[in-house]
């Protein structure tokens, strides 16, 4: 049986970490760059994320999520933790930048889960799509989204929660990913 990269990391395959870094380093770096206040913070965050990946590799279950989703989940958690602890995220980028990001077409080449998420997003009303993109992709806080969109706070929270649940349902309805699990 061919093991995944993360399974080989967990087993101590000496070549697996480099392979993991080469395959997912660009993904992690792009997340860290986008959700960190500056390049130095992004570098530190990337280092911390991969430490989390090495620690968590043994818990990777391909029946629950793809490697990319598993690693992106770890990365997002770390980045959110860093942002909360630093308390300096607000105002690091102008809202206009996020509007540009929100207009980027979905990149569906990340695998089946990303494609399923993109399809689920596309079925949402445009206003909800934008709120989801501002929150998840641009990393804006609820309050920042309120200022950027003029929507009430309750509406923003509802859009995010229902959007996430819609995507969750699209992922969990896929037979290979129906089981639970945690990175």
């Amino acid at each position, binding site marked *: 049986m061919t093991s995944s990269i993360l399974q080989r990391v967990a087993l101590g395959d000496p070549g697996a970490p480099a392979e993991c870094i080469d395959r997912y380093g660009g*993904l992690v*770096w792009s997340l860290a760059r986008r959700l960190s206040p500056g390049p130095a913070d992004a*570098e530190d965050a990337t280092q911390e994320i991969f430490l989390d990946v090495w*620690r968590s590799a043994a818990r990777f279950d391909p029946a629950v999520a793809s490697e990319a989703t598993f690693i992106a*989940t770890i990365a997002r958690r770390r980045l*959110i933790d860093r942002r909360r602890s630093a308390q300096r995220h607000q105002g690091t980028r102008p809202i206009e930048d996020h509007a540009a990001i929100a207009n980027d077409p979905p990149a569906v080449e990340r695998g089946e889960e990303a494609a399923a998420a993109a399809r689920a*997003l596309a079925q949402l009303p445009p206003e909800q799509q934008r709120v989801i993109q501002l929150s998840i992709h641009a990393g804006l806080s609820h309050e920042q989204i309120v200022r950027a969109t003029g929507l009430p706070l309750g509406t923003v929270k509802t859009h*995010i929660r229902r959007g*996430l649940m819609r995507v969750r349902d699209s992922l969990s309805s896929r037979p290979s990913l129906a089981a*639970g699990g945690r990175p």
Partner: protein
Amino acid sequence: MSGADPRPDRLDDLLAARAVEGLSPAERDELAALLAAHPGTDADELDRAAAAIDLALAKDEALPALLRERLLADARLRIAPAQQTSAGRSGARFALAGWLAAAACLLLAAIAWWPGGPAGRGATGADVEAFARAHADTVRAAWGDFNDLATGAPPEFPGVKGEVVWSDSAQRGFMRLTGLPASARDPGSGELADVYQLWIVDGTRGLGQRISGAIFANDAASGELIIPIEPRLRVNAAAVFAVTVERPGGVWVSDMSRRVCLAAVGG
């Protein structure tokens, strides 16, 4: 999804909030209580949904080569210590998870691993002396406490003894250290909580530009540690060597807040 009780909206509210912007301590406690009351809940499903959305929207950026080297250095320190070899020391077994690392850092310059070589793993006191005899410009500098330069405050680990043996022409050398405490490890995972890092001050560059000469760990509480030094960046005239405690993998620029020992050439 839930136990006997229906899954409350508040649980989804908290899981969604955690997935996009994190929770306050009070909210974390509340979430923990709700999850305990609903043990069938997959607590990570909305986190994975957020990650999948990010994957759908994000575009990769090329990982900087120097950062890649730093990540690899971390991985070598962290992964599969049982498969890695021990490094040389006299008197006591030294296990740096089997890896000796040397990194070079000059402000924004590279950190890179040094995998060994003739003076790499297994270096002994005899190797050090042979090296010194082979290079006429070899200098020796004794370790002393690295007190705070401004306040005179003592280092985190005072009393480390030994010496640095260094050759500018060879661009390498050795550290001999006794009395260096064992590196801290996380009690839960057993992973290194921090490492030691050697900094070289080049007399032609000034104090502000410190070159990283080695990143190492110490798993033994006693005995002499012999660590090779081989910076990737050129040291024109080594003037001062200093050891600090840094996070695993080392750092590019140290704030020198966790000082250990210092050796001044001719000092």
